[in-house]
Structures are given as C-alpha cells and as structure tokens.
C-alpha cells in the first residue's frame, strides 16, 4: 500500500448547530484518484473544504502527511500543496494569463512564464492567453480554472463537480488532463461528482457519502458492480431519489 496522505478520524463539521459531516474514518492515499459521490447536500463540498484546509473540523482529527491539522498552526507551505477547482470557476476580472499566474504570484514566484504557457497549451487555451476572463465561454472558463490549479504542481488536486453543466467536448478535455496528471505525474486527485459514469471513468476508489456520513468505500470495480450497501446500489443504478 502506498503512503497515506490524509487520515480522517471522527471528523465532524457543524454549521449553525447542525452537523453536516460526520466521517468516522477515511484514508486517502498518495497517487490515487478517489471519487466522492452522493446526492446534493450530502456534504461533499464541505469535505473538500476541509481537505483544502479552508475550514477545520469542529471535532475529531484531520491528519495530513502525519500532522494533525489545526487552524492556527497550519504551515503555509503545507496548505499550498493542495488546491481546488470548484464547480463554478470564480475568475479574476483580468486576462486569462493573469488568472493562471495568480497562484504563482502569491507564492512569490516571478519566473513562471514558461510554466503558464505550457499549462495553457495543454488545456487548449494558448490562443486565449490575452483574452479577458469575463469574455470566455463556460467551458473555456473552467479550463482556465483547471490551468491555474495545474500550474501550481499541487500534491493534491481537489475537484468539486468540475464538469457539471459542461458540453461533452470540454468534459473530454478536462477528464483527459486529470487522468494524465494522475498517471504521469502521480498527482493525488479527489474528485467530487454526482455523475457515476465520470467516477467510473476516472477513479480507482469511490466513497459514497449520504447525509454527511460515509455509507461505503470501495475500489471502483466492486463499488459499481457489487455494492455492499443497498443505498449504494440504489445510487449507482440511478434509483435514488434526490
């Protein structure tokens, strides 16, 4: 078994007194693509915010590379190993270039031009380098969002429904890049999706989250072909009403 990157132990997250996430145990391994599936409101996005250290558990331990993560003592360098692409790309009202270079700038990296160019080319955005972000189509904007994450060479890439509402062409590009990133560079990917087909195409392991708790964790094959929990089966077969 490869190195464990994240260990979650009895992690609880509450909003205004309501517990929305309650994970008794979950390990995430270096180099895997882990899909998190579940109906909306299940707590998937909340889990990703914890994994990106944007919020912290109210109870329990979130351990990243052996260190218990706490709000005040989180080293910046460690936090910067992880990044997220959200469902809706929130871009700066500036050029594509400025958006992609942003993460490098905040790290004080001034000589990132070549890396930015390479990433833009990889995502088919070279021709749009100097375009204004607000003039982009939805698919282009999401590719910019992925580009600005990739340029950081993250250890962990968190994707929160990155292709919801995109056309098949853009879905294809994004899935291709994510798969390639994982296979050739060993980037750990946690993919939130409510598209079970996408989970099947990309993930090695799948977590089924329902009402803030994990119903089932399994390798992709067994998860889709012989789920243990009837609720997982219902979700996989598209029978779950939500």
């Amino acid at each position, binding site marked *: 078994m490869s190195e464990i990157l994240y260990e979650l132990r009895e992690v609880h997250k509450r909003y205004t007194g309501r517990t929305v996430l309650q994970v008794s145990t979950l390990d995430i391994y270096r180099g895997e693509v882990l899909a998190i599936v579940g109906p909306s409101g299940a707590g998937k996005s909340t889990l990703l*915010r914890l994994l*990106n250290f*944007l919020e912290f558990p109210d109870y329990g331990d979130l351990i990243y590379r052996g260190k218990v993560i706490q709000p005040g003592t989180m080293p*910046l360098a460690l*936090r*910067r190993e*992880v*990044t*997220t692409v*959200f469902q*809706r*790309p*929130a*871009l*700066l*009202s500036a050029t594509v270039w400025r958006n992609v270079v*942003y*993460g490098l700038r*905040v*790290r004080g990296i001034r000589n990132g031009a070549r890396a930015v160019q390479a990433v833009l080319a990889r995502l088919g955005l070279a021709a749009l380098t100097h375009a204004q972000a607000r003039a982009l189509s939805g698919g282009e904007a999401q590719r910019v*969002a992925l580009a*600005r*994450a990739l340029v*950081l060479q993250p250890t962990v890439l*968190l994707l929160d429904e990155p292709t919801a509402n995109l056309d098949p062409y853009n879905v294809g590009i994004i899935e291709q890049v994510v798969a390639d990133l994982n296979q050739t560079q060993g980037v750990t990917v946690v993919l939130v999706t409510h598209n079970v087909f996408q989970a099947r195409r990309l993930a090695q392991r799948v977590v089924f989250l329902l009402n803030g708790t994990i119903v089932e964790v399994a390798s992709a094959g067994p998860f889709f072909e012989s789920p243990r929990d009837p609720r997982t089966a219902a979700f996989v077969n598209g029978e779950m009403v939500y």
Partner: protein
Amino acid sequence: MDVVWAGLKEGLRLLFAGDPYLWEIVLLSAQVSGIALTISALLGIPFGAIIGLTHFPGRRFVQALVYTGMGFPPVVVGLAVYLLLSRNGILGPLNWAWIPQLFTVPAMVLAQVIIATPLVIGYTMAAVSEVDPNLRLQLRALGATPRQATWAVLREARLGVIVALVGGLGSIVSEVGAVTMVGGNIEHATRVLTTAIMLETRRGNMDLAIGLGMVLLALAFMVNLLMAQFQGRGK
C-alpha cells in the same frame, strides 16, 4: 442681473489673474480635504473590506453604525468635535500635543475625517460585497493568504473603491457647517472655499464670492464626472 454678470466677469479675472487671496483659499481647501480624504481612505478602505468580507458577531450592528455615520449631519459632527476640543471640553483640557487645537487646520481635518470615513467604509463595504463570494474561497484555495485574498478582492472592487473615495471627497470639500464651527473661518489660517463664499457674500463682495463659487462648482463637477466615468466603466 448686472451684479451677476459683473461678478462672473470679475470672478473669472481673479481666477485667471492668480489673485493671491482667492488662490490661498483654494489651496487651503485642497490641502485640508486632501489630507482628510487620505486619512479616511487609510482607515475606511481596510475597515470596509473587513466588514464587507468577513463574518463576525455583531457585524449587523457595526453595519448599522456605519450607515448611521454616513448620514451624520456635518453640523452635528462639527458640534461634537467642538465639544471634544474646546477648552472646557473632553480632550481640550488635556493639552496633549497630538490633540488638535480648535480653530486650526488639524481640527478641520479631524471633522472632515469623521464626516468622510463612514462614507468611505460604507461604499467600500458595498463594493467588496458585490464581488462573487466564491472568489475569495477560490483564491484561498490557490494558496493566497487571507491578506492576499482580501487585496485581490479589493482590486476586483476597485471601481467601487474609487467611487467611495470620490464620494468622500465630494462630501467634505463642499461642506460648510463643520468647518465653520471648528475652523472659525480665520483669514490666512482656516478660511476655505465654502466658508469664504459665505463671508464674501455677506460682505457684499459678490465678484470674489462668485469666483470662489465657480472654483467649487468646477471641483464638484470634476468629482462627479470622475465618479460617472468610473461607474460607467464597471458596466
């Protein structure tokens, strides 16, 4: 009617001939309001950004205070500063070096800061809270520190922030009640555009009053033109 035409002509002549009395007043006005606006910006922009972007207990209360401050009648501000600084007031008797004396430029600056700061805070607050709230989270996820993320959001809201500054300037440069009360309209010392116009009108020096009035109008017009320009560009 003759008075107006004669006044306009003479006012223009004074303006362009570089009349020392008139220009002294114009420059002092620019100085007082410029310093006050700078201080208001340094206080108001960070405060506005924090109130607009973060959630803390009592935020609604603070917002209500700011909105109240935006609507303060300048005369009341003048009264408050007067009571604060006068010999038998609250701070006056302390005689500390950094406390401004009544009827001086610093006292006028203080009053204008109190008038303009809530406006700058309020407009900045509104401007940053119009920026997509997901942007800040996204920037944090890209590795920005809270400070870096706040700075980027302020940049996103820059048109609104400029409108905040222009609005603040407009409110103090044309204000007369507070500067009269705490400045005293002393010649060569605390006489600014608005107080001079009042005085010269009362003295019957219509040409001077009109000349000063034109400067003030031109200033107000430029301020509003700037504001319209920036607001239009955001669209």
